[in-house]
């Protein structure tokens, strides 16, 4: 005989018990342990511990200045480009310490690509050159291989049909939404394991935003995606997991459906419902 499900009252009155270990833990791309980051004297991230699931979309939300972008950049050592940064804790990518002394940051950034808030195609390069520049910088010269990768990347970025006849035109001749997809194609061309996105749609109109969102949904079958967004509805639409940051700390992290219907923390509830202030 099976034990009946406890009623809501029983659950309310019963002390909270730790959850049993899940039988099928999703595969993890990143394991972040006790991560703290300083810019000079200012601590931007404080003791963040979280695992990022593979081939899923994780959204990072939180008010301005909460450390979202710093956290995102720490996942491919991009934050090191800011002078006087200091980091404590560990970030493991597929079990390998990203900050180990023998790890080349350039290799990290190839494995973990990034797309920024404002699309930034190289202004002097054509559409085609923009896509394959990463491969060329890595020494790839085989024209046939480059052409194949060019088409594959543009197709994955859902841009091929729109630009296939204009590959020689400047990347900056494209619309804002197309430029952002061009940047995604550029990030995909080097075949990264992870794509980081820092507010990728914040400068786009609703149609271009919808195309990027659709693209993110399709890309997650092949890549682990971590995205920072200020748009709650977008986080709800595109992500599988959501992390809420506040004042440099990770307040709550869990499945997006749970976070947006019944968050566990009052601070999360106040932020996502617009009571924060």
């Amino acid at each position, binding site marked *: 005989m099976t034990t*009946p*499900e406890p*009623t*809501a*009252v029983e*659950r*309310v009155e019963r002390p909270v018990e730790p959850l049993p270990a899940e039988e099928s833990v999703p595969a993890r791309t990143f394991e972040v342990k006790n991560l703290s980051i300083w810019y000079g004297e200012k601590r931007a991230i404080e003791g963040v511990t979280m695992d990022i699931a593979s081939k899923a979309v994780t959204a990072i939300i939180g008010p301005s200045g909460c450390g979202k972008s710093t956290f995102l950049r720490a996942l491919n050592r991009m934050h090191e480009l800011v002078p006087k940064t200091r980091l404590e804790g560990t970030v493991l990518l597929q079990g390998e310490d990203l900050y180990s002394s023998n790890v080349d940051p350039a290799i990290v950034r190839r494995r973990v690509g990034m797309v920024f808030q404002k699309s930034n195609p190289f202004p002097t390069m054509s559409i085609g050159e923009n896509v394959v520049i990463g491969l060329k910088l890595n020494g790839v010269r085989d024209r046939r291989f480059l052409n194949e990768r060019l088409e594959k990347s543009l197709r994955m970025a859902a841009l091929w049909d729109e630009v296939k006849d204009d590959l020689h035109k400047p990347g900056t001749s494209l619309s804002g939404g197309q430029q952002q997809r061009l940047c995604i194609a550029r990030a995909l061309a080097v075949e990264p394991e992870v794509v980081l996105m820092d507010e990728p749609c914040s400068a786009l109109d609703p149609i271009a935003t919808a195309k990027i969102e659709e693209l993110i949904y399709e890309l997650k079958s092949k890549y682990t995606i971590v995205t920072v967004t200020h748009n*709650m*509805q977008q986080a*709800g639409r595109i992500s599988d997991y959501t992390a809420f940051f*506040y004042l440099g700390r990770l307040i709550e992290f869990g499945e997006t459906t749970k976070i*947006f*219907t*019944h*968050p566990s923390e009052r*601070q*999360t*509830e*106040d932020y*996502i*419902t*617009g*009571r*924060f*202030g």
Partner: protein
Amino acid sequence: MIAHRHILGTFEESLAALRNNVLMMAGLTDRSMERAMKGLFNRDDNLCANTIADDEEIDQLEKQIDKEGVDILLRFQPVASDLRRVVAAMKLSTNLERIADQATTIARRARKLNQHPPLPEVELIKPMHEHAMLMFKDSVDAFVREDVKLGCEVVGRDEKLDDLNQTVSNKLVERMAQNQDQLRGYLNLIFVGRCLERVGDHATNIAEDAVYAAAAEDIRHQHAAARA
């Protein structure tokens, strides 16, 4: 970070307006039920007529609440507790409208009964009436106070109302066999009993929605699943 009001004042106002309309609709529904039952017990045709007339206002409120709910979903895209409250309010209004429909049916049956000599068996309905109305009031209370415990209690009370209805129906069927001159009267009382039983069902729905709004927990159909 202590903040209980939304930064967006218009969102706060819209949520408050929706809640106020739900409370007003609950108040009118309660009044309709009480008037219908008084019309039955006191043989008062005026109260029955008022109940039937008030139904239109309650119907309009249901439409108003649905419109306001959709408007909030469209304009503010609420999440978390706000989303649950809006969804629960819209479902609540549907159940309130159906309770008001039951009040109208009771009022119509009462008017028919009032055309004939009084039936002492009307007393059989009183325990059902008390039980159903307490369920209804407590379910609305559970919604207003976001009281999960009370909501769950109300859900558990529905079985007793079903039993009471069964008992009353059995007794009235017996009387029908004994006194065939009052067949129509007894039949009307059976229908009144069924209406009260339906009020209990709607109160159960409201209580379940109240629990969902307060605790994000879906407790619907748990009794049925346990029985199966």
